[in-house]
């Protein structure tokens, strides 16, 4: 079980009751010792995201145009879906903006 700070912004918060910041406890998969971002996505879909999952997820990843940041770093720098998340980590999901 790891305690994670989740943040949704750029409009994604509208899928989560218009709440931007969530402190959540996410269990490891059966038999696993670590929680990966892929596990976190499954957990969010089952526990936090009650409607219209297609606005947030596509296949086993996030929808195009959503940037994932782990402790202020682009998830591309730490392994994307395979990145482990640890107690106290902050994971941000942000929809890119295009307005001006």
């Amino acid at each position, binding site marked *: 079980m790891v305690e994670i700070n989740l943040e949704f912004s750029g409009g*994604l918060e509208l899928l989560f009751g218009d709440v931007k910041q969530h402190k959540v406890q996410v269990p490891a998969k059966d038999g696993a010792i670590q929680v990966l971002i892929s596990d976190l996505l499954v957990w969010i879909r089952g526990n936090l995201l009650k409607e219209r999952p297609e606005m947030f997820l596509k296949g086993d990843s996030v929808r195009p145009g959503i940037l994932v940041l782990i402790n202020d770093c682009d998830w591309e720098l730490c392994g994307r879906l395979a990145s482990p998340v640890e107690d106290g980590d902050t994971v941000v999901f942000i929809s890119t903006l295009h307005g001006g």
Partner: protein
Amino acid sequence: IGSESHGLDKPQVERYSRQLLVPAFGVAGQGTLCCASILVVGAGGLGSPVLLYLAAAGVGTLGIADDDVVEQSNLHRQVIHTEAAAEAGNPKTTSAKEACQRINSSIKVVEHRTRFTAANALDLVRPYDVIVDASDNVATRYVVNDACVVAGKPLVSGAALGMEGQLAVYHDRPGAPCYRCMFPVPPVGARRCADAGVLGVVPGIIGSLQALEAIKVATGIGEPLSARMLIFDALTTRLQTVKLRGRSATCAACGDQPTITAETLPSFDYAHFVSADTDPSPLPVL
């Protein structure tokens, strides 16, 4: 101050005197800026402060690309325009150019009264040193990025919506990502200011920061937001700077085997590209 060697004349020394005093900028920075050319794509909410501050700062040649006319519903955020321009339905490029020249008649301002398209993108960006993306839609963001990569230009990209803003500098040095490295697949149902709204001062803040980054890139001063993104939440006045990935070797624009080139770009179908996903539902507007 010893400005002569940098080609600043007496009125310029007087006009820019407060900037010349800044050690990190100084006469060298001003001299470089007075010879620089910057293209601003979009003379709207973001473009207004970008253009006002770049004109005031003394950028030698300022290009303005936009094909819209000024409307009443622009005026709450597009502070470069006026009620008179909205009532007359003047082109944004004309209205913006007049405002820039009222502040600084010593710079050259060029109107590009056209939509930024695949067909004209390369011709538009080639004469300029730095490109500022102050546009308001996804298709333009991709075509501007791709043209910058093909023509080898740094891109200062800003966006604002609702009470939020984002800012990054792309493709300004070897190893830095381009916009397409970050977003290889376009989003679907992207929301625009006309649908989702925007508090007027939010693009004001992001646009001012874009002007700063454009000045830094054009003069080589300081550390631009390269491979970094600034994320702004106006409700809480929270400003985060996050670290982005590097250049992607598989990027269609800046990768090792690009499919977007000087030959292919002009006929690339951006409208189809950004709407290719079959999922049509935009994020809700509550």
